[in-house]
C-alpha cells in the first residue's frame, strides 16, 4: 500500500514539472482541462462560424454564386455538428471543469485521469469529421440530423468517418458527465447540503444525467446507420422490413434531451450572475431546482414534436402537442424568477450582466417561437422553414452561447487574475447584440413567408430579407473576433483583481485567490449558513 501511495506521489510531482506540450497532454488538473475545453470550443466556434459565413455568403443573393449545392449541404451539416458537439457542449464542460470543484469545495474532479481522456478524444473526433470534407465525395451532406435513408443508401462512403467521429464525441460526453455526477455526489465539502448547492452545479448535475441517458441512444442511432450502409441491415429500409421514420423517433429521443443539455447549464449560469449584479438573493431557489428537474423529465416525452409532418396518428400528435406546450410552464417559472430577482434589487450593468439580460429577453423570444411551434396545425406551416431556424438560433446562440459568454466574462478575472478590457468587452456585447438580431430576427419573416431551410438558392420574394440576414451574419461573425481579443488580452495581463472580483458575488469560488491557485480546497472549506 505504501509503495502505491508513493508511486502516485511521485507521478504527481512529475506532472507538476512537466512543461510545454507535455503539461497539457498529461494534465489531470481540472483547471488545465477546463481551460483546454474552453479554448477547444472557441476554436470550434470560429470554424463552425466560418462555415456559417460560407452559407450566408451563398444566400446573400438568389442564384448560385460561390458554392455548389453539394458543398452547401456539407456546410450546413458540419456547421450544425460542430456548433452542437464542438462549440456549445465542450464550452459547458469546460465551465463545469473549472467551476464545479471550486463551487462545491472539492480539490479536483473526482476522476481526473478520465477527465484528461475525455478531453483528448475531442480533437481527434473533430479532426476526423473535418478531414472528411477534404476527401473525394466530401463530408457529410445529409444535415446534422442525418435522416435515413439519405444518410444510409444515398450517402457517400465517407459516412463511416462521420459515424466514428460521432461515436468519439459521445464517449467524451459520457465520460465528462460521469465525472460531473461523481464529483457532485461525492466531493461536496462537509455541510454543503443538496439545497445549498449553487444552481450552476444543480443544473449541471441534471444535465449530466440527461447526457448519460441519451448519448448511448445517439451511439445506437449512428451504429444502425453504419450497419444499414455497410453491412446490409435494414433498420431504416422499408424494403427489408425497416422504417425510415423509426430513425427519426430514435434520433429525436436523443435529440430533444440534447436541446436541454445545451440550455440547462445556461440557466445555471444566468441564475448565478443575475443575483450577483442585482445584489439580491436568487428568487425562488427551490422552485428553480424543481423547474429544472421538470424540464429534464418533460424533455423525454416530447421528442416527436420534431416529427409532426411524418404522418403520426392523431392521438400521437395530440399527446406530443400537449406535452410540448407544458414545457413552457417550468420555463416560464425560470424567467419569472429571474425578473423577480432583479425586482427591487440594486442593479449594475457589468458585462456579464449585460449578456445575462440579453439572454433573458432573447431566450424568451426563442421560447415563445417554441410555444408557437408546439401548436401542431401551425407547425405544419412552420416545420422545416426558416421560422424553425430562427427559433433554434434564438435559443442556442442568444441562449446557450450568450450564457457561455456571460459565464466567461464573469469568471475570466478569477481564472487569469486580471480584469478584462471592459471597453472592448462592451463593444463586443453591443455589436453582438445588434448584429445577432439583424441576423436571426428576419428569419422569422422569411420562414413564415414560406422559405424552406437547407436550400442553397431561393425564390425572389425572399431576396431582400436574405441580404439583410447575411449582413447581420457577417457583422456577428466579425464581432466575435473582439471576444477573442478580449480573452487573449486578459490572459496576457491587465488590472489585478481581488479574490472577490464582483461586489455582489457569492460562493466558494470567490474565497480563493485570483488567479485561482493551481490547487484549491486541498482541505475542504467550512460551509457557513
Amino acid at each position, binding site marked *: 500500500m505504501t509503495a502505491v501511495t508513493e508511486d502516485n506521489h511521485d507521478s504527481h510531482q512529475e506532472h507538476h514539472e512537466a512543461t510545454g506540450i507535455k503539461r497539457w497532454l498529461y494534465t489531470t488538473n481540472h483547471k488545465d482541462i477546463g481551460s483546454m475545453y474552453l479554448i477547444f470550443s472557441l476554436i470550434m466556434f470560429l470554424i463552425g462560424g466560418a462555415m456559417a459565413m460560407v452559407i450566408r455568403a451563398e444566400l446573400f443573393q438568389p442564384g448560385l454564386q460561390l458554392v455548389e449545392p453539394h458543398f452547401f449541404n456539407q456546410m450546413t451539416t458540419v456547421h450544425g455538428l460542430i456548433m452542437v458537439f464542438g462549440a456549445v457542449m465542450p464550452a459547458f464542460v469546460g465551465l463545469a471543469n473549472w467551476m464545479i470543484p471550486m463551487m462545491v469545495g472539492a480539490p479536483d474532479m473526482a476522476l481526473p485521469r478520465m477527465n484528461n481522456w475525455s478531453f483528448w478524444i475531442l480533437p481527434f473526433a473533430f479532426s476526423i469529421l473535418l478531414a472528411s470534407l477534404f476527401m473525394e465525395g466530401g463530408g457529410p451532406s445529409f444535415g446534422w440530423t442525418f435522416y435515413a435513408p439519405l444518410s444510409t443508401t444515398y450517402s457517400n462512403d465517407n459516412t463511416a468517418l462521420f459515424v466514428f467521429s460521432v461515436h468519439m464525441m459521445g464517449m467524451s460526453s459520457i465520460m465528462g458527465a460521469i465525472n460531473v455526477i461523481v464529483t457532485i455526489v461525492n466531493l461536496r465539502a462537509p455541510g454543503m447540503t443538496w439545497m445549498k448547492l449553487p444552481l450552476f452545479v444543480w443544473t449541471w448535475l441534471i444535465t449530466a444525467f440527461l447526457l448519460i441517458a441519451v448519448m448511448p441512444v445517439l451511439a445506437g442511432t449512428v451504429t444502425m446507420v453504419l450497419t444499414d450502409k455497410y453491412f446490409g441491415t435494414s433498420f431504416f429500409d422499408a424494403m427489408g422490413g425497416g422504417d425510415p421514420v423509426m430513425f427519426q423517433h430514435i434520433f429525436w429521443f436523443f435529440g430533444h434531451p440534447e436541446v436541454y443539455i445545451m440550455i440547462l447549464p445556461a440557466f445555471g449560469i444566468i441564475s448565478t450572475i443575475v443575483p450577483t449584479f442585482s445584489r439580491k438573493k436568487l428568487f425562488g431557489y427551490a422552485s428553480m431546482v424543481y423547474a429544472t428537474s421538470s424540464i429534464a423529465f418533460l424533455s423525454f416525452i416530447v421528442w416527436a414534436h420534431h416529427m409532426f409532418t411524418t404522418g403520426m396518428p392523431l392521438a400521437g400528435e395530440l399527446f406530443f402537442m400537449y406535452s410540448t406546450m407544458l414545457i413552457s410552464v417550468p420555463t416560464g417559472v425560470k424567467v*419569472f424568477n429571474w425578473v423577480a430577482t432583479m425586482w427591487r434589487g440594486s*442593479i449594475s450593468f457589468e458585462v456579464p450582466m449585460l449578456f445575462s439580460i440579453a439572454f433573458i429577453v432573447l431566450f424568451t423570444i426563442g421560447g415563445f417561437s417554441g410555444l408557437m411551434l408546439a401548436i401542431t396545425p401551425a407547425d405544419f406551416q412552420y416545420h422545416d422553414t426558416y421560422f424553425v431556424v430562427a427559433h433554434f438560433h434564438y435559443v442556442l446562440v442568444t441562449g446557450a452561447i450568450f450564457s457561455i459568454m456571460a459565464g466567461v466574462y464573469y469568471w475570466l478575472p478569477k481564472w487569469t487574475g486580471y480584469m478584462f478590457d471592459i471597453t472592448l468587452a462592451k463593444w463586443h456585447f453591443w455589436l453582438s447584440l445588434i448584429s445577432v438580431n439583424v441576423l436571426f430576427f428576419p428569419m422569422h419573416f422569411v420562414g413564415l413567408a*414560406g422559405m424552406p431551410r437547407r436550400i442553397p438558392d431561393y425564390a425572389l420574394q425572399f431576396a431582400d430579407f436574405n441580404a439583410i440576414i447575411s449582413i447581420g451574419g457577417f457583422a456577428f461573425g466579425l464581432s466575435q473576433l473582439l471576444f477573442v481579443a478580449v480573452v487573449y488580452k486578459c490572459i496576457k495581463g491587465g488590472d489585478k483583481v481581488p479574490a472577490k472580483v464582483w461586489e455582489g458575488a457569492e460562493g466558494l469560488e470567490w474565497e480563493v485567490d485570483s488567479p485561482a491557485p493551481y490547487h484549491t480546497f486541498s482541505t475542504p472549506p467550512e460551509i457557513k449558513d
Partner: protein
Amino acid sequence: MGVVRFTLWLILLAPQLSFANSSLNMRTGVTDISENVYQLHMIIFLICCVIGIIVFALMFWAIFHHRKSKGAKPAQFHESTRIEILWTAIPFVILIVMAIPATKTLIAMEDTSKADLTIKITGSQWKWHYEYLSYNGEKGDVDFYSILSTPQDQIKNKAAKGENYLLEVDKPLVIPTDKKVRFLMTSDDVIHSWWVPDFAVKKDANPGFINEAWARVNEAGTYRGQCAELCGKDHGFMPVVVVAKAPEEFDAWLNDAKQSKQNAAQADQALLSQTLSKDELMTLGEQVYMASCAACHQPTGLGLPGVFPGLKGSPIAVGDVNAHIDMVLHGTPGTAMQAFAKQLTLKQLAAIVTYERNAWGNDTGDLVQPNQVKARMKGDE
C-alpha cells in the same frame, strides 16, 4: 385594466397589423383549414406578445428604477409561495385555452375520409410524380412527372431571373376547386416533403410508406410551394406547383390529359418502325439529358467524384450498348440511379443513350433507336 384594453386593441387591429400574405407573415391561404391555421398562428402569436410585453416591461422597469447608480438598496425577499403558484397556474390556464382550438383544427386536418379526388404523390430525387387514382369513384388514369422548369442559366446568373424563379415546373398538378382532394404521399428514394403553404398541407413522403393529407380549395388559381425535407443535392430545386380550376374546367382538362396520354402511346408505337437520324437523336438527347440526368452526372458528363459517377469514358457509356440501355431503363436499386423506363418516352430514352454514347468524346458512333429500347423493355417482362 390597461393591459386588457391594450390586448383588445391589439386583437382589433390585428388584421391591419398582421401583414397577412405579405413577405412578413404566414399566408391565410385558400382553404378553410389554412384560414383556421392562420388564426391559430395569430392567436398564439398575440398571446406570446402580450406575455412578453408584460414580463419585459416589468424587467425594464426594474432595470431603470432599481439601479445601483440611482442609489437603489436591495430588498431582502427571495421567495413567495403565493406568487409562485400564481405564475405556474396562470400560464397553465392559458395553455388549456390555446389547446382547445388547436385540437379542433388538428382533428379536421386529419380527417381524409369522403374524398372526391385521390391523387398519389411520389417524390424522387428531385421531381414529383402525380398519379390520379380515382375521381368521383372512377379510375383517374392519368399520371405524369413534374420537374423544375427554371433554366440553368437563371440559376447560374447568366440570364435574368423570371418572376417565378425556382417556383415553376414543366407540368403542374391540376385539381378542381370546391372538391375534397385527398393526397397520398410516398417516395421512391429518400424522404421528401410535399408542401403548399396556401393549403396548409405539408406532409412527408416516406419511402415504403403512404401518408395522407387533404385540401378543399376555395379559389381557382396557381399555388406554389417547395419540397420541405432535405433530400440531397438538389433539395432546393424541387418545387410544387398546383393549379386549381373550376370543376367543369378540371373535367375538361382531365379528359384532355387522358387523350394526350393515349396519343403519346400511339406516337411511341409509330416510332418503332422509324429510324431517327443522328442529329435528331443528339439534339433531343442533349435536351433530355440536361433535364433528367445532368443534376447528378453534370452537364460535363464528369459526375461528382465520390458522389455521382461520371459518364465520360465510363465502362457503361462506352461499353456494351444493351447494358447501357438496361441501366437507363431500370436503374440500380439501392443507389441514386433511378429507373427511367416509365419516366420518359421511348424516343427520349433512345436519344439519351445515343447522346451519352457520343458526347464528351465518348465517340462510340452508336445510334440507339426506339425499337432497340423497346426490345430491352420486353426482355425483362
